[in-house]
C-alpha cells in the first residue's frame, strides 16, 4: 500500500507536467486548429531562459520563472505571427510539418547558445524530501503539483471570466461569428501561442528543478504528452489535464509493477505505455474522452 501511494504521488507529479504540456497543445489547437509539435521545443527554450534569467541575469529564482514565462510567451507569439499565420488554410499535414520544422530550428539554436551539458538550474528545492505519514515526498514534486495546479486554475479562471478568455473561447467555438462580433482573431491566435509558451516554460522549469538540471532532452516530454491530449480529446483543456494526470499515473504505476508482474512485455515498457493506452482508447472513442466529435456534413 505504501509503495502504491508513493508511486501515485510520483505519478501525480509527472502527470501534472504532462498536463501542463498538454494544456499548451490544446490551447493552440482549440484556437487555431494546429497541433503544435514544437511544444517540446518551446519547453526547452523556456527551461533555458529560466536558467539564463536566474543564473546569468541574477534575478531571484521565484521571480525568474514568471520572467521566463513572459519571454517564452513572447517567442510563441512571434512564431505565430511570423510563420504560422502564413499557414492559415493550408492542409493539416503542411501545418504539422511547419511546427516540426520549427523543432529542428529551435533545438540546435538552444544547444548552440547553451551547449549540450546539463546546467544547474539553481532552484532552492534540490533533492530534499518531506515526510507525510510513512511516505517520503520530494519537495520539488510537491511544488510541481502545487504550481501546476495554481497555473491551471489561473488559466481556467482566465478563460471563464476575463474578457480576453471569453474572446478566445468564442473564437475557438466559431471563428467567423467571433470576428463578426468584433473579436480580433489575430490577437487570439497570438495570445494562444503566448499562453502555450508560458505554460511550457513552467513545465520546463519543473522538469529541470530538483537536481537533474536543464538539459536538451527535457523537450522529449512533449512526445509523451501527445497520448495525453489524444486521451483527453484534442480540443478539451479539461481533458488535457485529466489525460495528463492519467498518463502520469499509468506510466509510473507501469514502471513500478510491470517488471514484477508482466515481465514478458519487455524492459522499459513504461516508456511506451502511454502510447498503448492511447491506441486502446482510440479504438473505443476516436475523439478521446472529452473531445468534440467531428460532425461531417455532406
Amino acid at each position, binding site marked *: 500500500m505504501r509503495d502504491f501511494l508513493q508511486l501515485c504521488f510520483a505519478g501525480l507529479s509527472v502527470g501534472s507536467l504532462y498536463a501542463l504540456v498538454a494544456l499548451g497543445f490544446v490551447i493552440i489547437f482549440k484556437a487555431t486548429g494546429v497541433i503544435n509539435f514544437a511544444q517540446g521545443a518551446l519547453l526547452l527554450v523556456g527551461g533555458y531562459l529560466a536558467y539564463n534569467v536566474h543564473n546569468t541575469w541574477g534575478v531571484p529564482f521565484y521571480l525568474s520563472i514568471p520572467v521566463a514565462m513572459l519571454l517564452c510567451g513572447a517567442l510563441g507569439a512571434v512564431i505565430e505571427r511570423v510563420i504560422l499565420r502564413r499557414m492559415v488554410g493550408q492542409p493539416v499535414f503542411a501545418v504539422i510539418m511547419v511546427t516540426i520544422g520549427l523543432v529542428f530550428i529551435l533545438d*540546435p539554436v538552444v544547444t*548552440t547558445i547553451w551547449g549540450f551539458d546539463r546546467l544547474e538550474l539553481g532552484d532552492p528545492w534540490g533533492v530534499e524530501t518531506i515526510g507525510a505519514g510513512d511516505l517520503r515526498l520530494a519537495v520539488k514534486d510537491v511544488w510541481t503539483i502545487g504550481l501546476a495546479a495554481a497555473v491551471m486554475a489561473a488559466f481556467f479562471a482566465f478563460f471563464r471570466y476575463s474578457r480576453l478568455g471569453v474572446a478566445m473561447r468564442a473564437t475557438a467555438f466559431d471563428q467567423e461569428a467571433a470576428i463578426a462580433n468584433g473579436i480580433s482573431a489575430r490577437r487570439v491566435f497570438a495570445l494562444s501561442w503566448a499562453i502555450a509558451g508560458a505554460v511550457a516554460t513552467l513545465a520546463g522549469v519543473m522538469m529541470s528543478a530538483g537536481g537533474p538540471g536543464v538539459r536538451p532532452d527535457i523537450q522529449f516530454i512533449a512526445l509523451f504528452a501527445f497520448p495525453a491530449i489524444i486521451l483527453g480529446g484534442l480540443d478539451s483543456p479539461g481533458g488535457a489535464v485529466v489525460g495528463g494526470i492519467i498518463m502520469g499515473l499509468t506510466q509510473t504505476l507501469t514502471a513500478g509493477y510491470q517488471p514484477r508482474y508482466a515481465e514478458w512485455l519487455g524492459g522499459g515498457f513504461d516508456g511506451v505505455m502511454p502510447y498503448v493506452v492511447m491506441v486502446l482508447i482510440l479504438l473505443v472513442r476516436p475523439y478521446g474522452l472529452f473531445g468534440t466529435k467531428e460532425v461531417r456534413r455532406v
Partner: protein
Amino acid sequence: MARLRNLNMTLKYEDDLRLFKSRWSRAAILALLVLMVVLPLSYTDTFWLRVLNLAVIAAIGAIGLNLLTGFAGQVSLGHAFFIGVGTYAAVYFGEDQSWPLPLWLLACAVIGGVIGGIVGPFALRLRGNYLAVVSLGLVFLGIHVFKNWESVTGGPGGTGVNPPVTLGSLDFNELSLFGYTYSREQGWFLLIWPLVAVTALLVKNIVRTRPGRAMQAVRDRDVAAEVIGVSLARYKIGAFVVSSALAAFAGGLYGAYSQFVTPENSFNLPLSITYIAIIIVGGVGTIFGSIIGAIFIGGVPEIVSKYSHSIPFVSTSPSEAGFNLTVFQLNQIIFGVLIVVFLVAEPLGLAAVWFRIKAYFKSWPFSY
C-alpha cells in the same frame, strides 16, 4: 496539327494518358537510363556514390510515403517503423534463412505490406491530426518491439545486416564485370537505381489509373469520394499496404547496404520526419519529386559537412565553450529551415520549380 504537336498540345485523351508525353521526355528518360549505367562504372569516388546510393534507397521509401500522403492524403509519421520492419525482415529471411536476393527483397515488401494492412484500418477511424499522432505512436511502439525481440533484432545494441546480395554470378558487394572489378558503392549503384526506376514506374502507373484517381478523390474530399462510389476502406487501406510495402522494401535495402542497425538510432522519429521532409522538398504528389527530394535532403548535409571549414562561424569541435555552432547543429537548422521555407513559399516543392521551368520553355517564345 503539326504545329500544335510541336507546342506539346494534348489533342487526344490517349496522349494525355501517355507516360512520356513528348519526344523530349522520351529522350531524357533514355539519357537518364544510359547515365544510370555509365555513371557508376566510370565515376569512382566512393563517398559521393555512397551518398547517392543512400539517397536513392530513401527515394524508394519516399515514393511509398508520397503515394500515401501526397496522393491518398493520409498523414503518417510512422514511416520509420516500416523501414525497420523491412530491415529486420532482411535480417531474418536474408541472413538467417539465407534466401536469395530477389526472394528476401520480396519477403521484405510482403511483410511490410501485411503489417501496413493491419495498421491501415486505423486510418478509417481517424483523420488528419489524430492519425498523425497515432502514427507517431507506431514509431515508439516499433522501437520498443525492436529492442525486445532480440533473436532477430539483436536488442538495443543492434545487429549486423548481411543478407546475400548476389544475382546469379553477380555479387553486388564486390562486382566484377567483363574482367573489371568495381567497388561496393559502384556495385550497389547498379543494383538499386534500376529498382528505383521500377518502383517509380510502378507507382506512376498506380496513380494514373483508377486506384490513383480514387486515392486522389479520397484525399481531396473523402465524403464526396464515397458518395461517387469510391470505397474508402479499399483505397485508404490499399494506400497503406502499398506504401508500407515500399517502405519495408527500402528498409531491406537500407539495412543490407549500411550493414548495421540499432533500433533507437536507425528507426526513430527523425527518420520518419526525414521522409516527410523529402516529399515536401521534392514535391508532394509527384513521383519524380520524391527522387529529387531524396537526393537533395541526402546530399545537402554531406555538402555542408564536406565544406564546413569554409563556412564562417562553424566550429568543428563540439566541446568549445560559449556560442558554438557545430556542423551537426548547422545541418539541423538547415533541415528545419528547408521544411519551413518550402511549406511557406513553395508547397509543391522542387517539382513545381521544375514544372515552371519546363512550362516556360514548352511554350517559348510565347511564355508569359
